[in-house]
């Protein structure tokens, strides 16, 4: 063990934390909105909405994230009409490609979680709000969504951890987040075990914080008392 190297590389690797968190937070927020849309499409009962949503989820869950990342980063840039369109300033940046891919991925995975949450809202609530004269939109915003959040929270906590892990892939398209910096140091110093321990502990610490906050939220919202 080269402790001095571990100490030095710790300060280099933590410089990647802001990028990791930034990408994770932006993609999680955008992905959450996407997930609600996809979940609503799936349970809409109209084939024109539910069938595309089904295949979207199937496509994303059935292929590796790395492939999706390559597809967005290299595959889309092949076409001149994309290179000439207004999208190009976004799609040529690895940063935005990373965020787009992670957004799509978490959108597909969490749409299933949210769908399960929406389906678990018991009919009585909906009938009650109907009886109170609430509109469909209002019922959804004020009754269905809050209950869905509470139901989906434990599974969504897992999804957040998977997102932190998945964000390491953007290092492959040249972004220097935690894993990217760790990889650079490993290939310079050939000390894989030491760097793995340092970078790994940082990830474990981030994920530990997520688990703690999800637990805290679960207690506050009384998930365990349902």
């Amino acid at each position, binding site marked *: 063990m080269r402790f001095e190297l571990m100490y030095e590389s710790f300060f280099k690797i933590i410089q990647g934390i802001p990028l990791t968190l930034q990408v994770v937070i932006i993609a999680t927020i955008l992905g959450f909105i996407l997930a609600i849309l996809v979940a609503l499409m799936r349970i809409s009962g109209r084939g024109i909405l539910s069938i595309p949503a089904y295949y979207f989820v199937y496509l994303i869950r059935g*292929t590796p994230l790395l*492939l999706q990342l390559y597809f967005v980063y290299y*595959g889309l840039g092949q076409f001149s009409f994309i290179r000439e369109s207004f999208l190009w300033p976004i799609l040529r940046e690895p940063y935005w490609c990373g965020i787009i891919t992670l957004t799509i991925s978490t959108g597909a995975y969490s749409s299933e979680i949210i769908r399960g949450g929406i389906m678990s809202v018991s009919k009585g609530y909906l009938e009650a709000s109907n009886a109170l004269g609430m509109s469909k939109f209002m019922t959804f915003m004020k009754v269905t969504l809050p209950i869905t959040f509470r139901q989906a929270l434990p599974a969504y906590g897992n999804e957040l951890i998977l997102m932190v892990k*998945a964000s*390491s892939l953007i*290092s492959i398209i040249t972004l220097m987040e935690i894993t990217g910096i760790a990889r650079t140091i490993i290939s310079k110093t050939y000390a894989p075990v030491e760097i793995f321990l340092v970078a*790994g502990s940082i990830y474990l610490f981030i994920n530990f914080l997520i688990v703690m906050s999800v637990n805290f939220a679960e207690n506050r919202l009384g998930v365990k008392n349902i």
Partner: protein
Amino acid sequence: MTELFSLGSQGWGDEMLRGALMTVLVSASSLILGIVIGIIFAACKLSNIFLLKLIANIYTTIIRGIPELLVIYLLFFGGSGAVMYVAKIFGYNGYIELNAFTIGTIAVGAISGAYSTEVIRGAVNAVPKGQFEAGKTLGLKPYPLNMMVIFPQVARIALPGIGNVWQITLKDTALISVTGLVEIMRQSRIAAGSTHEPFIFYTAAIILYLLITRLSNIFFDKAEKKYSQGFVTRIAS
């Protein structure tokens, strides 16, 4: 288009199919390694020995909390060194280099092992207590009790979970393309690079992955039906 995917030296069809075969091979050997690891660590977690429990918990926490890519880098850069270190203890001082397939299998196997551990542990817990008690009443010793009474039931209950682990494993093998193993991901990268048609080859890769997923779903569904015959449980229903 047909030229690009023709077989033989002109097109990339046979290379892509060979890549798909490699993906299936690596995934299958990783899954098997993972199940072996899973059985061992599930036994550790279910044992009453504190140290074994601790080791198993550390292992599953690390693997489930750290990016797969980091684990792969650890084994890619450190795997040969570790093997040489062990070989030195046994008196062998030469240079050993593990090939990409072995490293990939170990890396993905270690990842899928953590998920298998949880699946198998859950399955053992799901075997009704009466089965253990009945076996003991019949005078079965621990080994035949576990092998002949508990294990077949664990295998049946764990099957759907192992099916999920297989899907995860299959997708994780895409990551070992960064170590140079020529599977679907790597092959489509090479083809995309040399033909300047990334869109087409990544689409082909997507189709290959979906095809493998589809076929393995059919396989696992059939196996589940076969092994849950005569059971009116949550699995059969």
